[in-house]
Every structure is written in C-alpha cells, then in structure tokens.
C-alpha cells in the first residue's frame, strides 16, 4: 500500500476587491503522485513555479481548494488534524529563521510533544535525548540556544524537530541550499541513513540537480503551477520529454561535462 497518495490537489490564490469579480492570481495543480515508505520524491522547477506552495499544502499550512491527500489510504482532513501533525512534518528553508531564538533547543523540541502526545515529563525528556542522538547531536545540546549552534547543527536541530513525533513523511523545502559542501554531504548522509532505518517517506525541493540525482527515486517537475513531468529519476534524467525539463537537464549536463575536457 502507498504511504501517501495525492489526488488532484488544486489551489487557487484569489484577490477580491469591492465591485470587481475575484481574480485568480496563481493557480496550482492538479497535482497527483504517490509515495511508498522509504522512497524519496524531489520537486524541481523555477522560482515562482509553486514548489514551496505544494510543500505547504502537503503539511497543511495552506488548505487546498479541491482534491485530497491520503495517508495510508485514509483521507487527511481537518477531522484528522492531530494525525496530520504527527505523520507529516516539515523542515523549512531557512533553518536559522525557523528556530526560536528565545528558548533552548530542548524547549523547542518539547513543544510539539506537549501539544500532540500524552507523554509525561520523564518520557518527554528521554524522547528528546533519543531524538538528539538520532540526528548526531549530544544530549547536552538541549540546553543550547540558537546562536550557540553552527549551521550544520542548526540543520540537525531542524531535522530533530521534524523527527520528534515519529513522522511517516518529511517534507523539506530546500534543506541543503544554505549549507556548505562538507556539511551538506553530512546532512545528505544523515537523511539517507535515517530513511533507511526508519522507512521515512521524504519529499524535498531542491535546485541542486546533482543532489537530486543522487538522492531521489522520483522527480516532479513543475512550471507555472502545473506539474509538467513526473517519473523515475533516471528516466527523467536520461529521457526528458518536456522542453523545460530538457533545457534544465541539458544545462546541468553541460556544467558537469565541462570539467572533464
């Protein structure tokens, strides 16, 4: 059975003014895809093509105007809000900006536990310790504030924040863009390892086609709010159909090949 099914999801951004009919500014979709446990889906496309919006729709930050998301065959709706918070978690683009500067890492990680689980203080603390160790940090890091962490560590805390509720799917909006090469490959390794161990479904947005090719099983190509192509990674990379995808892959290949001659 599929872990997550997205069926005909649509979203329309409308501006309505007095005396004039509502005007659609941006429309997304229809988007269809499915993901098995342990699989990775990459979303690529231009700036402003609706990638981040799609990610927000998946985690429930925006409500789709039509269509549905099925998790393990069950529809996610407002009735299952708590389950959605549990099972689909997001890592935001800017890991510095998404951490609260005023509280410690431990307090940050405790918040979703208080809101979504019935664990007591002891259990919460041990859960936090376990999660921190899972992402390669130490127990003591729960006493740290945001400014005391390096870039790579912040990314790890962001990941711990996503993992703390034992989700089934992680949605990440450009998780590698702001990282340096050596820290980036550490994070890639960490995510791939966790995926292997925990069977997570991983959906991520990236501009870096090298990493997309390395990590993703499936690719979704978006242009102007529409999914123009989707399929297996090596199919898309070797036999792209649409003009936009062809151009994208070709430029990437040119950049890669230019180092070998």
């Amino acid at each position, binding site marked *: 059975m599929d872990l997550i099914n997205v069926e005909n999801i649509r979203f329309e951004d409308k501006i309505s003014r007095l005396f004039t009919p509502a005007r659609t500014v941006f429309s997304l979709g229809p988007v269809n895809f499915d993901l098995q446990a342990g699989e990775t889906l990459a979303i690529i*496309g*231009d*700036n*402003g093509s609706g990638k981040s919006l799609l990610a927000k729709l998946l985690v429930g930050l925006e409500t789709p105007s039509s269509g549905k998301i099925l998790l393990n065959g069950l529809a996610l709706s407002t009735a299952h809000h708590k389950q959605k918070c549990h099972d689909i978690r997001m890592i935001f683009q800017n890991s510095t900006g998404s951490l609260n500067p005023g509280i410690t890492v431990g307090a940050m990680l405790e918040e979703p536990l208080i809101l979504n689980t019935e664990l007591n203080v002891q259990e919460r603390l041990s859960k936090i310790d376990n999660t921190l160790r899972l992402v390669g940090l130490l127990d003591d890091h729960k006493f740290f504030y945001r400014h005391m962490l*390096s*870039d*790579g*560590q912040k990314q790890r805390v962001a990941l711990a924040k996503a993992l703390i509720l034992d989700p089934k799917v992680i949605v990440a909006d450009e998780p590698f*863009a702001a990282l*340096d*090469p*050596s*820290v*980036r*490959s*550490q994070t*890639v*390794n960490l995510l*791939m*390892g966790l995926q292997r161990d925990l069977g997570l479904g991983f959906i991520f947005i990236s*501009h870096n*086609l*090298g*990493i997309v*090719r*390395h*990590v993703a099983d499936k690719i979704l190509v978006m242009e102007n709010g529409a999914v123009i192509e989707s399929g297996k*990674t090596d199919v898309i990379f070797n036999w792209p159909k649409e003009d936009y995808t062809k*151009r*994208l892959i070709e*430029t*990437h290949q*040119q*950049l*890669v090949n*230019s*180092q070998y001659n």
Partner: protein
Amino acid sequence: MILLDVKNLTLELELAGEWVKALDKINLVINQGQIHALVGESGSGKSLIVKAIVGALPNKRWKITADRMNWRGQDLLSMSVQKRREIVKSDISVIFQNPINSLDPLLNLGDQLKQSINIAALPKHLFWQRNQYKNRRVEELLHRVGIKNHERFLKTYPHQIPSNLLQKFMVAMALASDPKLIIADDPTRGMEVTSKAQILRLLSRVNQVKDTSILFVSHDLLAISSMSHCMTVLYSGQTVETGELQQLRKRAYHPYTQALLDSAPSFRKDLPPKSPLTTLAGTIPTLHHLPIGCRLGPRCPRARKECVVTPSPRKIHGHYYSCHYPLHWAGR
C-alpha cells in the same frame, strides 16, 4: 601581467579582548585575463578577502597587515584613501553577496545603474546628450544580462524585484564601469540551473572578449570548475592549496581539497545513487575556538603530532599547498 598581488595578508579583529586572526597569511595572485576561483566554506574568510581588497573594512575594528598588496604595481595599503577609492572605482567592481542589502532602497534601479556608468567610456558627446547616451548604455547592459522589459524594470525599487533578477542586475552594474577586475562574491547563490548557466556564460564571455580578470568567490564547485582557470582553496582563514584548476582536479595534494571535491556528487560519475557521500567529520570552527597550527587539524584524517605547527607553503610546478602530510606522500 599581474593585476593583483597579495602576499601574507593577515587580518585581525578583536574578540572578547583578544586579537584573533580571521585571515592568516593569505596569498593570492591574479593575472590579467584570468578567471581565478576562491573556494571556501562559510566563515573561511572569502568575503573578508574581498572587502580587504576593495578597502571596505573600517580601520578601527580591524588590523590589516600584508607583506604586499599591489594593484598593477601600486601599493594599495600605503596609498591615500582618496587615491585608493579612485582606483577601486575605475578598475575594480564588486558583485556583492546579498543584492537586497547592497543596493540603495531609496533610489530606483535605473538611477543606481546610471551612477555606476563610466562617463569616459561613452562615445564622444556634448553635455546635453549625456543622459541620452547613458540611457542607451543602460538598456544595452540590461539586455546583456538577460533582463527583458527594461523600461518597467528601471523604474522599480529593489524590494519589488525577486532576488534572482536583482542578482542579474548586480552583474549588469558591475559591467557598467568597464572594470579590469570583477570580483564576484557568490553571484549564483540560490539560482536555479538555467539562470546560473546564463550568468556563468556571461561572465566567461566578458572575460574572453574584454580580457577582464574575474575573481570568482563561491562554494559551488560545479560553477567554478566550468569556467575558471585557477583556484585557491581556503579553510577557516588559511590558504590551503592554490594551483591551476585542471591540476587540482586531477591531483589534489591537500586532504581538505580532496574532501571538498569528493563531497559534490556531480563530480563523480561512478558514484551509485543513494550511496553515502564522503565527508570530513565535525564542522567548521568558529572564530572563538580556532585550533592552533593547521586549522584543519581536528577534522583531518591524516593529522599527526606536527600539525600543531602552521605548515609553510610548498610548491610543485606552480601548485602551492600547505600541509605537513600531503596526499602524495602515501607511505611515509
């Protein structure tokens, strides 16, 4: 001809009552018509070098010392501020990292671009024709970097424009004064592949047609290796390795360079998908906790007792490296 020659540039700043060397004996030589890449992770001092070259660091908080820092034979450090500014204005232009912070929010983009046009380079004209010529030049510059409807674009303010377009605009601004050296501080950050390739093509075309040198500062190895001739690798304020790009790619001597090259999956054709990438353990040290000696020491897989002493640069066929146990000494 050597355009810029920097030797043993050291930059110190005061942190909690101590002077910390943010840059430690940096060497950099840029020849005319060359694209020189400066690679390093964040916090390695790439942007500090750029600022030290153009003199954008206020003297009070920083101590800048160098054995030499020459621009076409003239010493930049000992000359007057006025003269240095003139040189930087006419010969060097910088594409700064964060366009939204480095543009004036109160002027529209057209005015800002017009300000940086070199009047001497315009065709011979009388003073009332100057604006007309400037407008023509502005239009031409924008089309060159791939910005289409220029009339609307020039009337807007920086906050109204998406950052990747602003980045292209910064490139146009850098080209406006017909400089001899363009310093591009991460010009392709956060761009998607097609516009990145466009900017890279533009920069290398400028380099070929006008013989402009480019100092390309970035950590995107893919972009760097598609266009540059030489490369300098920095780690936490120390130059680690300098040499021709082809040589460096074929055979790196320093463990850090090798780790950097290995960390990009696009560089290795034989890498099976989903296999773990090679990395160095640990993270970049902060300025408060710099290790002594070779700063890579705590993370280096080949580190030994001698690495607490800063290694001096050694040279093999125009290829400098500073390491006590370089990679080609396999057995010893």
